[in-house]
């Protein structure tokens, strides 16, 4: 029984890998220049901040929540870091990272508190806080942080030529975050509890796991990850436009998570799947740019892939149910 489950979920990941490879080959045939290290680096550069936000979204979905405010948290934390650079240009980058991550944690904690204290569905709560967090930026001034304010050393994190091994540091930061999260989810009790409350909240609480505590933790962690993503975002774009930064990013993140095999019903989801989901979206976006397909297709294609993924997800679940019944 267990081996069957394993087969199916790895089949799912193989499917995503196959899609990535097929799209890559097709685009290479249409546009041979796609077959280059530059294009690979461009694909990788697409995904650092998306991957970091998607990791946060993944653990939320695993714990039966959905967070719509992660893009706004990214903007808010990134903006705070930008303000720091603006007021004091000598501030070490590490300090800005800490501030952004801490602020992200606080904003995530607020989400978690409201959801658990008042038992309101997280979609509704985070839809509200999404607007609140973005509104706060405008109350704080809301003027764009220009690239002349952003330290060159931060920008260098996203530049391939600045890296020793050819892969930009921002990509490595994102992958490191993914590895750490994977280890945490697998080998730490607090990590496994996230899956347990996602699988069966009632059973989890019978076993002495506090649903509220785990959920608060999940929201805080997702917020902190979004804060980190805010810094990576600045390093990639080079400035912070508070109105546009991260707007709608949570939808792309949910797409990546779902494509990666995380179940919207909670309890199921893997870091590797989410990484692959982000990679697939990155390949698609680059393929669209380089083949010159109109950008309007991009959203439609994203949509199609999401729907197909959910259908596959359901088919797998139904087959599992049938085989279990046997």
């Amino acid at each position, binding site marked *: 029984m267990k081996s069957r489950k394993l087969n199916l979920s790895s089949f799912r990941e193989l499917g995503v890998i196959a899609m990535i490879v097929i799209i890559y080959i097709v685009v290479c045939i249409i546009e041979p220049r796609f077959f280059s290290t530059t294009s690979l680096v461009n694909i990788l550069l697409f995904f650092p901040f998306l991957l970091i936000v998607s990791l946060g979204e993944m653990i939320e979905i695993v714990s039966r929540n959905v967070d719509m405010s992660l893009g706004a948290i990214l903007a808010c934390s990134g903006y705070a870091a930008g303000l720091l650079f603006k007021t004091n240009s000598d501030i070490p980058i590490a300090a800005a990272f800490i501030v952004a991550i801490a602020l992200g944690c606080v904003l995530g904690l607020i989400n978690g508190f409201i959801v658990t204290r008042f038992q309101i569905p997280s979609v509704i709560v985070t839809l509200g806080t999404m607007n609140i967090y973005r509104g706060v930026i405008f109350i704080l001034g809301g003027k764009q942080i220009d690239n002349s304010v952003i330290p060159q050393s931060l920008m260098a994190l996203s530049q391939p030529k600045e890296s020793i091994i050819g892969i930009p540091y921002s990509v490595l930061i994102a992958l490191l975050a993914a590895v750490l999260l994977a280890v945490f989810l697998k080998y730490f009790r607090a990590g496994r509890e996230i899956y347990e409350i996602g699988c069966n909240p009632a059973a989890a609480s019978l076993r002495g796991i506090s649903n509220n505590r785990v959920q608060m933790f999940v929201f805080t962690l997702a917020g902190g990850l979004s804060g980190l993503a805010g810094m990576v975002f600045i390093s990639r774009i080079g400035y912070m436009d508070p109105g546009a930064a991260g707007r709608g990013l949570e939808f792309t993140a949910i797409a990546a998570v779902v494509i990666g095999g995380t179940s919207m019903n909670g309890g199921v989801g893997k870091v590797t799947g989410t990484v692959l989901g982000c990679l697939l979206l990155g390949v698609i976006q680059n393929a669209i740019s*380089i083949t010159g397909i109109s950008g309007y297709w991009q959203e439609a294609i994203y949509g199609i892939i999401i729907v197909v993924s959910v259908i596959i997800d359901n088919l797998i679940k139904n087959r599992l149910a049938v085989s279990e019944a046997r």
Partner: protein
Amino acid sequence: MKKKALSVVLGICLLGTALVTGCEKKGVEQSAKSDSSKQEETQGSTDDKEKGSAKSASDVTVRYICLTKGIPYFDPIIDGMKESVEKAGATFQDTAPDTSDATAQIPLIEAAIQDKVDVICISPSDPDALCATFDKARDAGIMVLCVNDDITGNEDRRDGAVMSTDYDKLGKENFEAFAESMNYEGKFVALSSKTGTPFQENQMQIYRDMMAEDEKYAKMEFVDVLYGDDEATKSLTEAEAAIQKYPDLKGIISPTSVGIVAAAQAVENAGMTGKIMVSGTGTPSQCKTYLENGTMPNAYLWDTGLCGNVAGTLAVKLATGEATLEPGAEIDLGEYGKVTADDDCLVPAGDPLKFTKDNAGDYDF
């Protein structure tokens, strides 16, 4: 049986409402038609009304509706307009929607109508979507001035427009400087915002016209138009893809402030500074780094503060009846100079500005 009867009743109800709403639609269309014919009459009569009951400046309220919140480009326009409106003794208010959707400004215009302001200054997000709401405002006796962007093709649906500069002149000067930095040869692409945005399409048409008309651009090749949707990440990806796709690319020209920065960033990321020239329209504060390190030999814009000043002063003068906006009218705006309206009541506020590494630090926008 009961169920069946219920569904029949429901069906009839539905049919009824469909019929009624269908009729209503027709009614609305008709009244819209009569509105637009009425509008021409009222346009004349509001002018008379203003002349008859000259309002003093202290009773005038000017409300500016920006494109969206938080775009640094618009800050000097807002500040300039506030300064000149308040200097004239009138009241200034400003507001903006959260998104740049074509329809997001409609509720804000409706609110301005309810609040009975005297002049609505607006940077319209779309040339068509707002016209019906403009008609409503003008029927209520409110003057509608487009600022920075016009509703090209629908000029008769607003009272006038204040543009920051003569955009055709800007396009020509910009392309010439860009071509010069490329030594008049090689491939180049344009990085635009969304497909069909009037300003960008017009600028790109100017480049094409200049290339077709003048021999000196004969060795230049306009290979592609990229659409970055004025989104930082998308613009960056598009520019990076173009650099990859055309290894012998010599230039990127971007008539949008989000695009020009993304183009420069992409050129730097690819280590092509000095090989691929970047130019276009952007604010000096955003372009400063790239102007100074040579990625962007020059950039163009206009004095957005002056645009705000001119729009603000003009708005108050029109509301008090001190000036009338009609084709060819010359209006003296005191310290902000004299402006002349063209055939569509469009007023350019000043000359284009050119930024280079030498003067980028002199501006604070």
